């Protein structure tokens, strides 16, 4: 199945990002295809390479980048949501690209299922 994912929440505050990462791993392991992950609203904060969690904590951005680069998944960070929150392409990590809302519509058209992660 062709899947699209939307991540709506910031990392660490809610479990949404962790759940999304676990979902992505499980879906890939089952042989499903993830067309694109769209980071939206506070979800854009998943993309910043400036996050520095304590050493005994998980590093959510690095987890995303690993999944994305290993499986060639496109990560799009909503431009309007990003700009409001001080995120631009100088702070986004490897694997994340700033893009428009239209890419969410395109994802909904092409994906068999759109799975949304929020609080």
């Amino acid at each position, binding site marked *: 199945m062709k899947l699209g994912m939307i991540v709506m929440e910031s990392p660490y505050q809610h479990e949404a990002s962790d759940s999304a990462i676990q979902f992505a791993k499980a879906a890939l392991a089952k042989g499903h295809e993830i067309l694109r992950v769209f980071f939206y609203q506070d979800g854009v904060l998943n993309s910043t390479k400036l996050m520095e969690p304590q050493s005994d904590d998980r590093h959510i951005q690095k987890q995303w980048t690993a999944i994305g680069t290993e499986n060639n998944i496109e990560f799009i960070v909503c431009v309007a949501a990003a700009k409001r929150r001080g995120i631009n392409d100088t702070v986004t990590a490897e694997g994340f690209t700033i893009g428009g809302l239209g890419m969410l519509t395109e994802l909904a*058209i*092409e994906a068999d299922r759109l799975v949304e992660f929020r609080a």
Partner: protein
Amino acid sequence: MNDEMAKLMVVFRTAPYGSIYSFEGLENVLIMGAYDQDVSVLFIDDGVFAIKKGMDNSGTGIKDFSPTFRALEAYDIEKIFIDRTSMESRGLTKDDLVIDAELIESDTVEKMMEEQKNFFMF
């Protein structure tokens, strides 16, 4: 992209000014209008307040975006529905709305949802 139009539904289910959801939903619908798909819009639960007339939020510092819903028609978004139960239980009538939305019953909502390919929830 597929040749056949995709049935996409945008659902407004939260109040307009307590969070960004409703505003983002509106931005989304306007973008989706450009994609020539089978887009429908549903207002349900507290989402019905998004299209209430005469809101005064001047004290909040947040832009009043409710009148922008009137632009939906210009973007060729014509399938606009409001859940009757949600509307009436909040003391609203069709006269209180900034746009002309079709009243639908809860069992119709359920049926319509089953027909969609993908959803956007706000």
